[in-house]
């Protein structure tokens, strides 16, 4: 922010040399602020417990990443792999289904006319605002009413709901699918749903990936709902499992290295997803922002 005090007399097209240096310094420090904690996690995951508590992370003498990995997998009878598989299932399957459902609904809002359309859409926007914590207790009571508490479905069904995805779906549909395409398909005698699946959905691709990716992040991050719904450790997602292990670490410190290594492993899928799908979500984001 201090860069904003750059001299006003600077030639407009070529900012002052000092200004340039300050701007780069501020950005550089900010990048360090965001990167260093992650770096710490990476380094700490390669250390055994003694080195961790001596906090000399840069010495290479106590390198025990492989051992830490073995410990994470072996701890509590292989619970971590179980949690990891659960998280993948909740997140990948949930985000895939959720994104398809939201995009379809957003598309219908954009392309079709029906009564009370804007009122129904207002309901979607209202749902964006409602805090998760408000829904948790009623959802718990409903789930216990139908006997779903402490099952896979208690966590899986609520995370499918993504009202912001509908809002985005409508915007993407406006931006990516010209109405003329639909009219042409109708003239050719194609059914509405066939057109959606064969033509429109393909055009909505980047939007679909964007919604998928962001829902994936939310579900992977999900902590409150599993905490409320699940008591069986075998059903935990990684987030809740690491929370449980961290509580255990206060009593038995051998959990510390496992929690740290486990945290590092839990970060990997999202970073992979964001990197691999970069091309899609970047274009998706810009399309949303221009509107």
């Amino acid at each position, binding site marked *: 922010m201090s860069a904003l005090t750059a001299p006003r007399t600077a030639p407009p097209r070529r900012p002052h040399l000092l200004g340039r240096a300050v701007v780069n310094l501020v950005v550089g420090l900010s990048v360090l602020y965001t990167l260093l904690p992650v770096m710490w996690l990476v380094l700490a995951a390669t250390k055994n417990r003694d080195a961790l508590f001596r906090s000399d992370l840069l010495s290479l003498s106590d390198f025990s990443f492989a051992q830490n990995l073995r410990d994470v997998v072996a701890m509590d009878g292989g619970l971590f792999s179980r949690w990891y598989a659960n998280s993948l299932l909740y997140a990948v399957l949930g985000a895939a289904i959720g994104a398809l459902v939201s995009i379809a609904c957003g598309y219908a809002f954009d392309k079709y006319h029906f009564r009370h359309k804007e009122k129904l859409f207002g309901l979607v926007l209202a749902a964006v605002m409602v805090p998760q*914590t408000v829904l948790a207790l009623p959802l718990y009571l409903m789930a216990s009413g139908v006997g779903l508490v402490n099952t896979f479905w208690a966590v899986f069904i*609520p995370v499918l709901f993504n009202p912001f995805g509908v809002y985005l779906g409508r915007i993407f549909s406006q931006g990516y699918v010209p109405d003329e395409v639909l009219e042409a398909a109708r003239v050719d005698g194609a059914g509405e749903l066939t057109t959606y699946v064969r033509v429109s959905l393909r055009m909505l691709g980047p939007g679909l990936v964007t919604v998928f990716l962001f829902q994936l992040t939310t579900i992977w991050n999900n902590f409150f709902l599993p905490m409320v719904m699940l008591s069986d450790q075998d059903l935990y997602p990684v987030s809740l499992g690491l929370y449980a292990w961290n509580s255990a670490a206060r009593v038995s410190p051998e959990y510390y290295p496992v929690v740290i290594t486990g945290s590092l492993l839990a970060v990997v899928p999202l970073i992979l997803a964001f990197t691999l799908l970069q091309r899609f979500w970047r274009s998706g984001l810009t399309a949303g922002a*221009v509107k």
Partner: protein
Amino acid sequence: MSQPVSRPLAGPLPVSEDTTTPPETTRRVFGSIRAGGASSPGGRTATRASARRRELAAAATLMTPFYVLLVTVFLIPVGTAVWLSFFGDDQPGLGFGPERTVFVGLRSYAAVLTDPTFLGSLGTVVLYCVVYIPLMVIGALALALLLDSGVVRLRSWAQLGLFLPHAVPGIIAALIWLYLYTPGISPVIELFAKADITIDFLGVHTVLPSIVNIALWSNLGYNMVIFYAALQAVPREVIEASVVDGAGPVRTALQVKTPLVSSSIVMVAMFTLIFALQLFTEPVLLSQSSPMINARFSPSMYIYDAAFTRNNYGLAAAASVILLILTVALSYGVTRWTNRANSAEEAAR
């Protein structure tokens, strides 16, 4: 629960604007072309009506899955929360009789609103918002403007680095920072110790800033990307015009670019507010190591404590409804206030 939030970027929410007028005309044109092939005199309207029916059926098919979810995991739960807040368990016969659920009116609300621990949690979250939201919005906007100024080296690498924490789940971010706040493990505290400064990140006065720091770290880069995308959409001619008018880079950034992305600023502020009010993950994790955070530190923690530790559903539901009303009122206030500010600005022109 101010975890990295999945809310991609988009402009202001089109609440009531009808963006669908033009297609109507195209449809009529195409409709008449199609109807031209029909031989019977009534064919034209019949075809149209059946086309319309087909469209409605398609719309219904596409929307049903979402609305089934909306009813089951949103409308019914909100209704249940409101219903629960007006009812309570009553045990006749000195508590030995069978439990009955009776209407208690506003009794739960009165209990919540006179509970000092609930009011304390509200105070905490308000203070948290007051510190966190300006820092977040100004910080992210400043970074976006700096990156947009074109003098930053390795710009896309810088963006990627700033964005990275968004891929770190909220609970893991809290874990990392918890360890960086823990004496004996933290290299930060060790560094300070070498300079003879003792610092307790989880003390009475530092615990809230410590939580703000975690949230800021998690979401700064994400919001920066939103602002950056909006800045990229600003037409270059506008920037060039201001440069020709003799405005320096700083004035261009603050007086030309910033007003042009005001809708993104409002959106970021609103979502930051909504998620800040739900504050849960970070304090719950830090409470494992800090006596400064009790079980009713924030309203969400209060709700959790009331519902699942004390099993007082009426109390939890009333607190939930209050949090809901507060959230809706504040976000409505933000949009109204900015709308008015915008129209006042237009009027001044």
